[in-house]
């Protein structure tokens, strides 16, 4: 019984963490969207908002795993693989989106500096 409690608690913590991460990336996406409105440059805000969806897939897997729906070990292993692939893809696309947004920001701030006249 205590083992099941620990497992349930760890699921809850993982779900909470995933949701918070997803909210964070969505907020970064919204900020990027505002920058694209102001500076009229592509800031990959849609990618930043959509990329963390893998975190939600992973969270869903954790929820299902705690229910009898994934009691079959084979099905559970397959679902787990899918969830981890979604998590990996999500991480990759988030990294890509943030990197692109950072480079756009850099170029915007760099172009603000007046060029030296020789």
């Amino acid at each position: 019984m205590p083992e099941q409690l620990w497992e349930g608690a760890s699921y809850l913590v993982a779900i909470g963490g995933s949701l918070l991460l997803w909210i964070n990336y969505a907020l970064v996406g919204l900020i990027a969207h505002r920058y694209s409105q102001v500076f009229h440059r592509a800031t990959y805000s849609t990618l930043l908002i959509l990329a963390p969806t893998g975190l939600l897939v992973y969270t869903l897997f954790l929820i299902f795993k705690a229910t009898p729906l994934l009691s079959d070990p084979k099905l559970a292993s397959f679902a787990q693989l899918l969830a981890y692939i979604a998590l990996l893809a999500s991480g990759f696309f988030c990294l890509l989106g943030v990197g692109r947004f950072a480079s756009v920001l850099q170029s915007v701030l760099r172009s603000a500096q007046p060029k030296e006249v020789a």
Partner: protein
Amino acid sequence: MFGEVTNVSIGGMLRLLAIYHQTGSLRVRGEDGEGEIYLQNGQLVGTSKPGKQLHEEVMRLLLLKKGFFHFQNLETIPAKHVQGKDEDIENLIMESSRQIPPEEAAEYLPGEEVVLQLAPVAGEREWVRLQLQRDEWNLLIRVNGEDSMAMVREKSGLRKGRALQVLYGLLSAGIVRKIRFRIPKVIEIATRELGNLGEALVREAFRKLRLDQNRMHMRELIALLNELERNITLLVGPTRAQHVIGLMWEGSKR
């Protein structure tokens, strides 16, 4: 063209007619007299009292108080009214300013917070012959496009009444003119308040609105500040935006 002397000085009106090379008669009627001044292509050529000296009669009319003037365009000035030629209306106006009571001069002057700058010479004259008294020159050199009229007056060291006379003369003669507002140092303010992002925002707004910082008028400044307020609100929030735009507005005031 019709006007009231309480709104525009006769000298100021005469100068405008000269700048625009008008030909016709400027009829002036005031509390203590009336008369006409004739202009041919913007040059003073005569008055309605041919017997009197042109200079003397124009001076009398320039000093008329509270009344009306009316300018009538003419093809040419009748020969009987032509007494001579006087290009240098500025000197006549300056001379009349020396005789105008200070309190009357003050009525024509704008608020003392107004900033004055030297004015370019209009028209096609090759030479501008200005005859200024020492105290007039000493006040004129204080006009720097930065200080308010009150500061210019104080720095000149002249007593208030005389300074008002001189300022009235310089303004009416078109030697100096008002600056209505100044372009705030928007880039410096934005950079100071928001760092590099502030500078980027200002430059982006200039690009978007196709504005030149050195050739902006009030309308362009309003458009720029509206654009900046919108964008700063989007990126850093309305409170900071209002603060920064408030500083820029403050910077535009003289």
